[in-house]
């Protein structure tokens, strides 16, 4: 029998009890993995085990695909009209509203992000997202296309069928809804693998999905490791689309597996090394605040983190001074303390990787302006860290660190910074700070990134698309654009009076 996770929260920001089954969710039931093994879920504030959850295997993926196929052919797909799908999604959103605090607490416990962030950021955006896609459910229209009076041509935007979804640990719940929202709205059934590091909110959401009334088999969640469950999904012959968010390294593997198996459709949302560009005429106070938000938000564990901060020479010293001050004021601490901004990194592995980059920065000759060390003695906390005096081929400038570590780089003029900013394999996001709107637009248009922020950072909306250029990925999530990831276009030609 799967473990029942019971936990009492008694914290300054949240008091409450949770108790739920932590099995795999297949065909509307919570079940053990077929090998009856489990995965430990670790608390990143102290390295201790919170609970264990059932571990899925490739065989469980098969069972999930069976259930998803059956549901697609009977109770879901186009057998369930759009407005009904929308009703269920709206019901799910209402349940999420009812359980907001509980979900935020689970997220903070599992991932380490501050409870207040989870509650006022992640949960708000997530509920918004589900309601947004609920509204699309009955609006998936094709086109009628004029060719000649002898023919009637139209398109249908049909659901793909069983889709595989693999999500990361940095925004467990938000990534969960970004994936299931558009997929369910368009009529697909799902086999989803949450991150083995942060499965708790995904599993709790399965119960809400069940409570909302989605038919069995529409959503299936198989917790497990990337090289077993993730690989099984990416290679599955009966899954016709896989959507992956995670590292570029693993993204390649997913694409390879898709190509080698059944050429399934893929969308990838991968890493970034996003440039944050501050011109001389920027509102410096604001630029400093946004830059801090850009790198310390979610402890730097954001694919779109503004990790390369380019500052024009005229304001470089003043910016650095103020940014340093701001960085020192970041409250690092327990996720359940009321004033915490930055919690621990999510795992030992991530902690080691980030510290490894910090070491490489030191070794390659960059200067540690502040930070560069562990914060405290328990858990995976890292000090806000700023590097200066780097050069472009250093690892800390080229590679994604995924922690509260930024490199501040001086630049001369627009041409110089655009060249430097684009000098990366990635292309997820970028930001420009300036009071000159013309410059803002021309620079923004020259930067090779999927999201451009002008005088702000890390702004996301459920109805605005998000995704990367180059090795930051392919395809777009959010907005109407996400619907394209989950529909297949069929063109129908009806002969009215042509004779052969």
């Amino acid at each position: 029998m799967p473990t029942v996770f019971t936990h009492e929260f008694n914290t300054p920001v949240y008091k409450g009890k949770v108790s739920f089954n932590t099995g795999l969710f297949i065909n509307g039931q919570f079940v053990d993995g077929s090998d009856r093994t489990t995965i430990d879920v670790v608390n990143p504030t102290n390295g201790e085990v919170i609970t264990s959850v059932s571990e899925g295997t490739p065989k469980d993926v098969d069972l999930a695909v069976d259930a998803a196929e059956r549901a697609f052919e009977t109770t879901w797909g186009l057998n369930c009209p759009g407005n009904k799908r929308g009703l269920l999604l709206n019901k799910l959103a209402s349940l999420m509203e009812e359980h907001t605090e509980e979900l935020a607490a689970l997220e903070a416990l599992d991932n380490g992000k501050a409870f207040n962030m989870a509650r006022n950021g992640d949960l708000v955006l997530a509920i918004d997202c589900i309601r947004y896609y609920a509204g699309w459910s009955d609006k998936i229209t094709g086109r009628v296309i004029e060719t000649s009076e002898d023919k009637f041509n139209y398109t249908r935007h049909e659901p793909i069928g069983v889709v595989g979804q693999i999500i990361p640990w940095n925004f467990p719940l938000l990534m969960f809804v970004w994936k299931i929202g558009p997929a369910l709205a368009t009529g697909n059934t799902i086999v989803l693998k949450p991150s083995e590091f942060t499965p708790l909110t995904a599993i709790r959401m399965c119960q809400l999905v069940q409570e909302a009334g989605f038919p069995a088999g529409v959503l299936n969640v198989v917790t497990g490791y990337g090289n077993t469950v993730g690989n099984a999904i990416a290679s599955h012959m009966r899954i016709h689309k896989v959507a992956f968010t995670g590292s570029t390294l693993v993204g390649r593997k997913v694409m390879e597996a898709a190509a080698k198996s059944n050429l399934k459709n893929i969308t990838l949302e991968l890493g970034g090394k996003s440039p944050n560009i501050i011109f001389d005429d920027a509102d410096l106070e604001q630029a400093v605040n946004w830059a801090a938000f850009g790198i310390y938000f979610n402890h730097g564990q954001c694919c779109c983190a503004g990790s390369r901060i380019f500052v024009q020479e005229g304001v470089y010293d003043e910016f650095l001074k103020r940014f340093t001050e701001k960085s020192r004021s970041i409250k690092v601490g327990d996720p359940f303390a009321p004033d915490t901004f930055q919690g621990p990194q999510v795992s030992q592995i991530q902690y080691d990787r980030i510290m490894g980059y910090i070491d490489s920065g030191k070794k390659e000759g960059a200067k540690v302006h502040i930070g560069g060390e562990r914060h405290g003695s328990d858990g995976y906390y890292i000090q806000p860290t700023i590097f200066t005096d780097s050069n472009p081929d250093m690892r800390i400038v080229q590679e994604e660190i995924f922690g509260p570590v930024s490199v501040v780089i001086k630049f001369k003029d627009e041409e110089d910074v655009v060249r430097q900013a684009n000098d990366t394999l990635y292309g997820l996001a970028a930001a420009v700070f300036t009071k000159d709107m013309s410059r803002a637009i021309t620079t923004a248009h020259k930067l090779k990134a999927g999201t451009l922020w002008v005088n702000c950072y890390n702004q996301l909306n459920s109805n605005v698309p998000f995704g990367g250029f180059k090795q930051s990925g392919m395809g777009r999530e959010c907005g109407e654009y996400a619907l394209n990831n989950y529909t297949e276009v069929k063109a129908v030609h009806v002969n009215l009076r042509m004779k052969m």
Partner: protein
Amino acid sequence: MAQTVRIEIPATGRVVEIPTGLFINNEFVSSVDSQERIEVINPATEETICSVVAGSKEDIDVAVAAARAAYSTTWGKNVTGFERSRLLNKLADLMERDMQVLAEVESLNNGKPVKIARDFDIGDSIQCLRYYAGWADKIVGQTIEVDNRTKMAFTRHEPIGVCGQIIPWNYPINMWAWKVAPALACGCTIVMKPSELTPLTALMLSKLIAEAGFPPGVVNTVPSLGPIGGAALSHHMDVDKVAFTGSTLTGRKIMEAAAKSNLKKACHIREVSLELGGKSPHIIFESANLDQAANWACLGILYNTGQDCTAGSRLYVQDTIYDKFLALLVDKAKQLVIGDGFDEKSGGGPVVSKAQYDKIWSYIESGKSHGARLVLGGEKRRGKGFFVDPTIFTDVTPDMRIVRDEIFGPVLSVGRFKTEEEAISLANDTSYGLGAGLHSTDANQCMRVSSALEAGTVWINQYNILGNNIPFGGKKQSGIGRELGSYALKEYTEVKAVHWNFGEQADWPL
């Protein structure tokens, strides 16, 4: 300032509190300058249910001012799509909560059976609100490439502003939802004039608007007589758009008024919502499934007791199946029970008013006197209530009034045809163009005929079934513009093009 009346619904014993004032700025108020009342009649018993305040021209001014103030402060561009969506969904929830009582009052006032009001009128209305709630945060414009080096352009789809909405009495709640939902989703504010025959549910729904949390002034409801309130709205210089559903006759007046006042969006042909009358043709080809076709044909003319703008009131049957089909049709039409809306057995209710009743009977008399043959109905009932039984005329000719004019009652004219061309020609021989139906199992014929029929909605092997996501409206004199679907959004948004120059230098002098 609370203005309510308590009425008891005889059949159920339920006591309902109904607001009877004008709904302005989320409150029910008296008229500013008039003591007039509108008597609201129960068409099944001919008795007065209650009376409500009759709005005057000055009241319309007050309502428009309230709508304008809300538009400039708490609504319009000051409220996000997400918030509009949330409120519309909340309104849908409240309507669902009050479904049964709303259905009973709808039936009491309009006459339609309670179960039909609840499951169809109100059920569809709730879905309509939810459908447009889903659009509220999806009103997008375009970005348009001009010259990457110097300029870009984009469009904004902005709310039109203050909208006057005038709705009819045949589907009071459903017509209310069709108007209110897309207007609110797009960010417009509203002054609604419900029909003076059926104002009660509009007032009850106004109460739900306040309960849902819409800011004051976003929706205002002014029951009044057409020539007073309707005219005032159409002429008003501070109303940006008027949307009207009703007779073609009144539609013309609205359009004239709009043109003479501020060229409001009732005269740019593409922008107006005028949803007017119809004399919709319903064609039965020889390959049709006759039993099903007869069912649909009955639904087409008898649903809502024929008080439907798309009523399939002209039936054309191919001569090879004429006798067989007619027999089927008459037999099925006889099976409909027209009675009190609270009687479980009723499939249809009385017509809505004495005026309608008299008008329908004058058409029946005209049919008789011009030589059409009555195969069903034609006899007045005795006793109270505006009950008209299913009536079928055959041996009609195209110039008869019963074939040319919209009767708006359960009165069908049946003609015959030989060829497909003849059927199409007969069907299109009308100044209207709202709906049309055809029954055939020949797919190519279905495509050819649906293409040739001059109507805004064509049903193939079906009739009178609509969807909130499918547009609806008329060609020719049946109206302008489309309601429902994504198309309705166009009626309530105005496109602004923004040209953003960031590099183009102006030469001077030229």
